[in-house]
């Protein structure tokens, strides 16, 4: 919706408010959808992954798994990666749809654009390649976030700056920060590959 307001302002200075649908749809599908969704999931679920696995580390649960000869990668990490690979694209699609509807609301109800034109622009702007890029990005971010968050938790005991519960909180913070940075970096990389 903010994109709608800002976009409307910017476009109206050059007299092309009609392009709002294009701007919002492409902005969302190509960039904002996958990136913002990934950052939100990192804050919500990624931090929980790190904290959970970190607590398992300091309470010797991971040692217990090793003694029972259970592979922690297969037992703990693989299911989380798989879940991320499913959830990231789904939530990204939801984010896109909600964003486009939000743009419709701003543009049509608040700023008085023609709804039909907005939707037409959305429809004609987004091509298969854009959706494909969006999908690839969300999968890429799923891999980044789940692996960073799982491994930060898994190696909580290797931290040199702290130990015990404090190490879990530090691991969680650093997992979120690193994930967000990597999301932005790889977003850039993925975009350059596709353009």
């Amino acid at each position, binding site marked *: 919706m903010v994109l709608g307001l800002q976009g409307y302002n910017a476009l109206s200075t050059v007299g092309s408010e009609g392009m709002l649908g294009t701007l919002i749809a492409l902005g969302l599908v190509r960039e904002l959808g996958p990136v913002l969704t990934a950052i939100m999931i990192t804050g919500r679920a990624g931090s929980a992954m790190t904290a959970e696995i970190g*607590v*398992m580390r300091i*309470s*010797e*649960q991971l*040692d*217990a*798994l*090793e*003694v*029972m*000869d*259970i592979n922690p990668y297969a*037992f703990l990490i693989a299911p989380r990666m798989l879940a991320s690979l499913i959830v990231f694209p789904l939530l990204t699609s939801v984010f896109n749809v909600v964003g486009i509807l939000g743009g419709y609301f701003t543009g049509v109800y608040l700023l008085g654009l023609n709804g039909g034109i907005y939707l037409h622009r959305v429809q004609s702007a987004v091509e298969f390649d854009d959706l494909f890029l969006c999908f690839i990005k969300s999968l890429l971010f799923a891999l980044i976030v789940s692996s960073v968050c799982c491994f930060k938790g898994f190696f909580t005991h290797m931290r040199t700056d702290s130990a015990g519960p404090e190490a879990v909180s530090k691991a969680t913070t650093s997992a979120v920060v690193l994930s967000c940075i990597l999301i932005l970096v790889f977003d850039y990389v993925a975009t350059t590959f596709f353009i």
Partner: protein
Amino acid sequence: MTAEQKKSWEIRLEDLTLGYEDKVVLNKINASIPGGKISVILGSSGGGKSTLLRHLVGLRRPMSGKIILDKYDMFAMPDKEFRALRRRMGMLFQDGALLGSMNLADNVALPLREHTSLPEEVIREVVLYNLDLVGLAQAADYYPNELSGGMRKRAGLARAMVAAPPILLCDEPTSGLDPINSGQMDALLLNLKEQNPDMTIVVVSHDIESLFTIADHVMILHGGGIAFNGTLEELKNTQDQFLKRFLDRETIYEESRKEEHRSLRPETQEEVRNALDKWLGRN
């Protein structure tokens, strides 16, 4: 079961040096822990008991020296055989180390579910039998965070026992437990021993009372080395002053009572008293 598997497993430590990064915790120790007995490892806090146990179960590699189980040199084996050897060991961790995301029954069933293709009814039966053994049959559906520390330890023991390992390692099974729970834990270990006469049980503890109840064999760690390694009888009859003091809290208590402590300066006492009076509204 073949004759080879049936006999008990002895553990030998040869020139074993253990530690973390650049810190040596135990230096060049030599000892043997007899098979088919309950051995208790005793030592002051930070003396390296947990460290030794973590190496015995192969969670860390020694800095140098060997750990020999029966006739196998644990850390000189290919990974596959090493893991096969480790399957022979069950471990009770200090706080049970049950997986927080599963209830007790699933926790205890885990080794069987992961490593065998037993049908679900059989697993269920074995799990309930083992939980019953540790007095937790009623708590099968509870999650670890819904249990007391003592119950978690007992559940951890049930999980360690479910695969019937010939070697059982326990890290402080009675620490943090009230006398009743401690007594139950001791009884449990003795029962286990009775039912599995060939099982080698190693218990880390600093609970002197439980030492006298359960131990056949005792090893005392002190100052990076082994201060004593022998049977409980030998320990009881020892003339060594250090060991006697170690076992006898009474003398340490007497000595500590006699120690002189410096007291606060009178001006400081006065100042603090005034400040507290003010805070408490006494005047």
